[in-house]
């Protein structure tokens, strides 16, 4: 538990020393302005509320991809991975602690997006279904952390991890249905959206601020949880494989 907390504190120090890691908190309001203007200019005030909340998912994905995803690889580049792996504290606990800390700016991103939408953009974002909202928000943060763990592990193995992470923003925004719901996407694309936890989460968030009942909330919550557990397990397996390979082949110092 102490290791987990140390990893958590370490990541917070990174945020203080490298404020550029928090850049989505600056771009989210601007995206909110753009999306809201597009809906108002398109004479669709009914879409303003959900559109103004879409930047939250952009921030969330960014934190999973760049903040969480690069945790192990940056240790490798900095030459600190050897010390971490050889220390008596569990390496996985350090990584989990650091990834847990990425939930803080991700959680703040929602508050920022909602407050900006409600009080600056004057968007109708009143939460009408609190239970669904709180449950989906919680499992979404869990799925984000699990996905970050998987990416952190995969990025060590992938030769083109930098290219992938720089390219994995808008394809996942489309597949996640964060602005345009999955139901509106072309039919051939829709099956590819279901393994992306963002698509279930975005549907639930839109439903939580809309009048009327939330369609199939249990299905959505279950899907996010299952995708999160799957990503977490896969991340754990890849992480232990990496550590075993690095220890047996002595590749730790190879960058």
């Amino acid at each position, binding site marked *: 538990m102490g290791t987990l907390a140390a990893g958590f504190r370490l990541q917070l120090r990174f945020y203080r020393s490298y404020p550029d890691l928090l*850049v989505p908190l600056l771009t989210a309001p601007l995206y909110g302005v*753009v999306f809201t203007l597009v809906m108002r200019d398109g004479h669709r005030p009914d879409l303003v509320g959900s559109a103004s909340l879409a930047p939250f998912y952009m921030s969330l994905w960014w934190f999973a991809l760049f903040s969480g995803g690069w945790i192990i690889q940056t240790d490798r580049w900095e030459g600190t991975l050897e010390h971490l792996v050889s220390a008596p504290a569990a390496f996985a606990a350090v990584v989990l602690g650091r990834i847990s800390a990425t939930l803080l700016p991700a959680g703040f991103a929602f508050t920022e997006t909602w407050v900006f939408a409600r009080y600056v953009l004057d968007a109708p974002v009143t939460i009408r279904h609190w239970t669904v909202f709180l449950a989906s928000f919680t499992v979404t943060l869990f799925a984000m952390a699990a996905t970050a763990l998987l990416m952190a592990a995969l990025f060590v193995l992938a030769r083109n991890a930098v290219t*992938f992470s720089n*390219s994995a923003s808008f394809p996942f*925004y489309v597949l996640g249905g964060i602005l345009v719901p999955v139901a509106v996407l072309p039919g051939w694309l829709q099956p590819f959206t279901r393994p992306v936890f963002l698509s279930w989460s975005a549907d639930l968030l839109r439903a939580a601020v809309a009048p009327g009942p939330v369609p199939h909330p249990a299905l959505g919550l279950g899907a996010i949880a299952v995708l999160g557990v799957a990503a977490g397990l896969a991340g754990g397996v890849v992480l232990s494989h990496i550590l075993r390979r690095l220890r047996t082949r002595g590749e730790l110092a190879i960058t």
Partner: protein
Amino acid sequence: MSNASVVRHAFRVGARDYSTIFTWKTWLGAWFVRVLAQVAFFALVGRMLGSAERTQYLLVGNAVLLAGMVGMWAVNMVAWERSTGTLPLLAASPTHPAVVLASRGSYLVADATVSAAGALTVAGLLFGVPLPWARLPLALPVLVLVAGSAFCFATFAGGLLLGFRSAQPIVTNVAVVTLMALCGVDVPVDVYPAPVRWVSSVLPVTHGLRAIRLILGPAPAWEPILVQAAWEALVGAGWLAVCLLSFHAIVRRGRRRGTLDHSS
């Protein structure tokens, strides 16, 4: 060494830089998928709004924005020279550093133009947007102007941010979304109050995008197209002039204080 020779060598260094970032496989399989998804993300909004006209507006706007977005990456170029220790050498050489930076970074303008033109074409086909394909090549020189204009703007910003390494990615990201918001990419500039419209008029992308919308419009009139393209060139030239002046001041201050090679 003549300027032509410097340009040739700097271009080769830039091409080598670029080849370490992308192979044609990663460019097509990762980068191009990303830029295509960016254009599709906004074009889908037009489809959601049920308007073919708005779909085309968003598709064209966001495709042209790509030229400005890639050009904006030049923010990091000056800092790269400093972190690799070559900035003091550039400052000490008889060739103006701007010649080297422009030649070495020209791959950004080329990439910006190809990314934007490619995304416009493929997204146009995917969404069935009735673009006048025969006139599309006329948009290419304007895309080069947009990318060049953003490149000059970004190099100026990069010089100002030389001592603030953490600020560079912040400025790049915020600037790209600001261009998206203010330059008529997703909504006409007319929706903004006069002071915002004025800011928009001195930013890269705004005039070039107007020219391309006119080229791809139903009845293109050449005079307004040329006027808008000329404005985009003028905006780029203005930022280049500001960039050269600021760079001169930065180098002079760095020489006086001996801080030119200090990393931040």
